[in-house]
């Protein structure tokens, strides 16, 4: 007799349906198009109102530099008035992140139990710059999917590598402009996220031979996020998120192997669509 637990496990792990590839990509392409159209049809009145509000807001007038500094504002706040030199470090991190030409890093996550889950054999390599966003997805050491957004060329591409399928989408001027203007580091989002949760300093530790200083934030659901930055380089080295979902299954997300301030063009970020 199979136990109740075995039956639950069978439903969780074995009952999985996946969209076939052509439909999978067509649907994503349609969804991206719908998302773009829904934003372009936003009433002009609303946009004007938002713009007026922004221009009247003195904090926003400080400009993007101040906003990016605030990305690690949580870290700075931890050390202000304590006589610690850590505040200087976090300010340097903010400056470095803001002026970095581009970054490449590895991302991994686990917890969904989906057979297509990247963990433990898969990962993503993410490329980010003010003009380009690219994500290469790997499983078993093989790249199987790439998402590419070029805000200069106003292009969005989804590419399956095996079997080969490619879908290309044009970004409107407005959408490409807005995406670029939002800033590739998404500073406001990080600020909002960090400030909405409890946080504390983690002190120092060595990661892959690099002396780092860390900060940890805890979400209302008990999940935690940790950011470690290199003391000497002033760049983020490791980001981790972990927690427990509603089924008491632990999930983790890890971003590491950062390469900051790289010229993505020189690294071959451009996505060439194969002829076949």
């Amino acid at each position, binding site marked *: *007799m*199979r136990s*109740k637990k*075995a*039956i*639950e496990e*069978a*439903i*969780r792990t*074995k*009952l*999985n*349906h*996946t*969209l*076939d590839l052509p*439909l*999978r990509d067509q*649907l*994503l392409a*349609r*969804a*991206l198009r*719908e*998302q*773009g*159209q*829904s*934003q372009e049809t*936003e009433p002009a009145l609303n946009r004007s109102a938002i713009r007026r509000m922004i221009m009247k807001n003195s904090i926003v007038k400080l400009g993007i530099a101040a906003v990016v500094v605030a990305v690690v504002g949580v870290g700075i706040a931890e050390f202000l008035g304590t006589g610690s030199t850590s505040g200087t470090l976090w300010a340097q991190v903010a400056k470095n992140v803001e002026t970095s030409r581009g970054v490449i890093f590895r991302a991994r*996550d686990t917890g*969904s139990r*989906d*057979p*297509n889950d990247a963990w433990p054999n898969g990962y993503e390599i993410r490329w980010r710059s003010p003009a380009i*966003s690219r*994500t290469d*997805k790997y*499983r078993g050491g093989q790249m199987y999917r790439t*998402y590419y*957004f070029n805000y200069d060329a106003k292009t*969005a591409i*989804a590419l399956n590598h095996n079997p080969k399928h490619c879908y290309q989408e044009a*970004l409107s001027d407005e*959408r490409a402009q*807005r*995406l670029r203007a*939002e800033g590739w580091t*998404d500073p406001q*989002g990080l600020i909002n*996220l960090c400030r909405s949760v409890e946080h504390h300093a983690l002190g120092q530790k060595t990661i892959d031979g690099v002396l780092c200083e860390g900060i940890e934030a805890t*979400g209302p659901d008990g*999940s935690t*996020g940790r950011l470690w930055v290199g003391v000497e380089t002033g760049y983020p080295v490791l980001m981790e*998120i972990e*927690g427990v979902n*509603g*089924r008491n*299954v632990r999930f983790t*997300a890890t971003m590491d192997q950062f390469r900051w301030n790289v010229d993505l063009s020189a690294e071959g970020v451009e996505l060439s669509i194969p002829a076949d």
Partner: protein
Amino acid sequence: MLEDEWLKWKLRRGSPEALARVYEKYIDALLTLAMGLLGNRATAEDVVQDVFLSFARSAKGLRSRGSLRSYLATGVLNRVRDRRRQLHRQTVSIESVDEPVCRSAGPDQVAVLAEQIARLDLAVAELPQEQREVVLLRLKMDLKFRDIAHLQQTSVNTVLGRYRYGVDRLRSLLNSEMEP
């Protein structure tokens, strides 16, 4: 989950990358949920397409509270109920179960996996609708019982009972057939 909160924040700002990430993360679970509730692949695909396209159109207005997973599962559930109201209940047979695709499996494993999934599909299709919803929302979408109770507009105790009866029924249906 922090990642979902982050994705919601980006979606409200129109990030296509966030939409692609949500798609990758949830589309197969949503299809499995729709398949389990409807027992028909073509209709399930239609439902999932409706849900995701609607999600893409409305993502900018996502509320900061509430889970992304629950939001999408609710979309599937509501559309499945609409379809069921429109159509006669479709019974599922082994011939009508489309061959599932498991891209993480090697070619030699596909046939075995496909048979296992077909048997699970058939067993799930045997459950009364309310039990089927609870079992799938819990096991495939990781929803909390209290969230499922809210969706079914009933008490948590009733949902727990439906879950228990549903899993017991699956157990009796699958016990003699399933591979470990």
